[in-house]
């Protein structure tokens, strides 16, 4: 008791410091408990003095604390308990309820009598500091991320400009070349035909490029659609007509499976045709000679309706069918609804699952082409993106088709996504558009 009183007199100056301060005897008896600690812990010195700190805070008896305190009680060098490695040496909460984060320094003090040493714990409240540091780190990380995004966007735009110039220039070379040859008037009629064909084809190609660019700028400014009732079966066949020649030139087989009772949606027919055309021409472009392309039009409903169906989807190959149900990457697809197999939904019994909003017309275009690497899949619908710049050289084009397709599909309230098992494994593009109300009624009657 005497020692306690003596300690109060000798160490009273510790009540004047803005740190938590506590003095322990080597048996862990609390000899001093300053007013700052009283305030932090709401434990008065009357309660604390003379008691064993290990009784209230058992971690003081754990070896990692006990060993280090032992050195202090022998007059050894100061010991630090940092906030990251020991958050609460003496647990204390802030008025708002969260725990104070503490940085504690323990120094040895010669005992008031004998040649023992006491341990003086000086506890700094670093809660505010810690949060400020965290805030600063987050701010800095966000700034860095924003900077990176901006730099990346800039790079992509630079690359895009390079691609645009290249792509616009390439059709000009044959046009100019053949025009000069035509001026010489020394060509036979077969060569003249070839010259005109080439000029026409390249002029069309360039017109298409410019059209794409204009589309992008229109879409970015907000495109107006001419709303009407569109029969998707017609849309698909018209789009198909424009790519058949290109496909034949590469001996690519195109398989078509249309469910004629699906067709009607609300939308802009020329824009929807553009979507299908984009997907088809992409498929032709990236499928090697002798490959295969499948297009289907089907009606899909909710997930429950699809469950239990075993029929294969549009993919002609086993692998692709698995992919459609298994590990598929979905873009702009709120749920994980799997792809419905073609021609199955109409055979499903009508159940109470059939909610008005769950019926979609689904167009799928799958190919046996070069596929999409998992790395690139998430970016495939972004503007100005192609898997790499060398691809532009190999395949031509601006990499706008899919971005335009996505914008158009979304303007129609639909979704578009792509699946691929990776490079060389082909790809499947799926578009789903909400079926026009009345067409569903007609569908049921028929």
């Amino acid at each position, binding site marked *: 008791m005497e020692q306690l009183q003596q300690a109060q007199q000798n160490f009273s100056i510790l009540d004047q410091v803005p740190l938590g301060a506590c003095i322990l005897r080597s048996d862990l008896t609390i000899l001093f408990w300053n007013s700052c600690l009283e305030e932090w812990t709401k434990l008065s010195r009357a309660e604390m003095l003379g008691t064993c700190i290990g009784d209230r805070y058992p971690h003081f008896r754990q070896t*990692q604390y006990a060993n280090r305190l032992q050195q202090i009680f022998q*007059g050894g060098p100061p010991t630090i308990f940092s906030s*990251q490695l020991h958050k609460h040496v003496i647990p204390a909460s802030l008025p708002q309820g969260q725990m104070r984060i503490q940085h504690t320094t323990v*120094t040895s003090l010669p005992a008031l009598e004998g040649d023992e040493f006491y341990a003086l714990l000086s506890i700094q409240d670093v809660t505010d500091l810690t949060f400020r*540091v965290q805030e600063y780190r987050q701010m800095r990380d966000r700034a860095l991320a924003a900077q990176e995004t901006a730099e990346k966007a800039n790079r992509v735009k630079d690359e895009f400009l390079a691609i645009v110039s290249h792509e616009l220039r390439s059709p000009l070379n044959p046009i100019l070349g053949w025009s000069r040859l035509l001026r010489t008037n020394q060509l036979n009629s077969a060569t003249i035909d070839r010259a005109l064909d080439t000029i026409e084809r390249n002029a069309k190609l360039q017109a298409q490029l410019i059209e794409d660019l204009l589309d992008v700028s229109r879409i970015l400014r907000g495109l107006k659609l001419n709303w009407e009732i569109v029969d998707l079966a017609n849309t698909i066949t018209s789009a198909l007509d424009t790519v058949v020649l290109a496909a034949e030139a590469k001996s690519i087989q195109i398989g078509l499976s249309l469910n004629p009772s699906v067709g009607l949606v609300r939308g802009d027919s020329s824009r929807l045709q553009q979507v299908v055309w984009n997907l088809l021409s992409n498929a032709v472009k990236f499928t090697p000679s002798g490959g295969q392309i499948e297009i289907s039009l089907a009606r899909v409903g909710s997930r429950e309706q699809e469950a239990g169906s075993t029929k294969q989807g549009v993919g002609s190959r086993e692998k692709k069918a698995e992919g459609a149900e298994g590990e598929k990457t979905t873009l702009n697809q709120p749920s994980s609804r799997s792809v419905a197999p073609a021609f199955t939904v109409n055979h499903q019994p009508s159940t109470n699952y059939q909610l008005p909003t769950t019926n979609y017309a689904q167009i799928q275009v799958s190919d046996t082409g070069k596929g999409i690497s998992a790395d690139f899949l998430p970016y495939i619908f972004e503007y100005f993106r192609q898997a790499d710049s060398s691809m532009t050289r190999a395949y031509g084009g601006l990499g706008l088709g899919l971005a335009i397709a996505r914008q158009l599909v979304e303007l129609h309230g639909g979704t578009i996504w792509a699946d691929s098992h990776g490079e060389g494994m082909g790809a499947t593009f799926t578009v789903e558009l909400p079926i026009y109300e009345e067409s569903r009624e007609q569908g049921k009657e028929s």
Partner: protein
Amino acid sequence: MSYARPSDKFLASRGISLVKQLTEDQIDAIKELINIGVGRAASLLNEMVGFPICLEIPFIQVFTVEDLQQELIARFNSNYLATVRLEFSGSINGSAELVFPTESASTLVSILTGEDLGSPDLDAVKIGTLTEVGNIVINGVIGSLGNLLKQRMNYLIPTYTEDTVENLFAAVEPDDSTIVLAQASFTIEQLQVIGDLIFIFELQTFDQLIAAIEEVA
């Protein structure tokens, strides 16, 4: 890098006459002392972080302050170093420093706290942790030294500094009265963390250390 003890010839060539007094046995004894201390620190760190940390002292070298400075400049250029320093007085006066290249320091903090490395800079919170780690390692060694000397030493509060080699030693007067006794490099196995332990002792009290070491050697 040679792990061998510097030869007497090498030391003599650098004019470290007093160091000549150190025999091979004495240097071994110092090495032993530091190893015991570092071993204690390692087991304490293991316990704190819950996974094995191995601190190794592959070699110990003896330098004058100037030579040590040159050595560190050669090794770290003018890069920033993080150091934790403990100054002591009593039967031996001097300081002990734990020196890390800042990247090593930051890696170490990430490992110990399980936090993502994020950026390799050291902020106030990380510095607190590093000071604790430095404190543990230094205390391990100084603790065994104190036991050996059987005399009460006085210690200042450990301090953390981040600076270039030149500035870190600016405070140490490179005159005849000062000698760096040991430079002990340590590594944490598999973690690519490298640090140096540097002890700077004032010369007039060096005899006592040798005498104490003689007792155990």
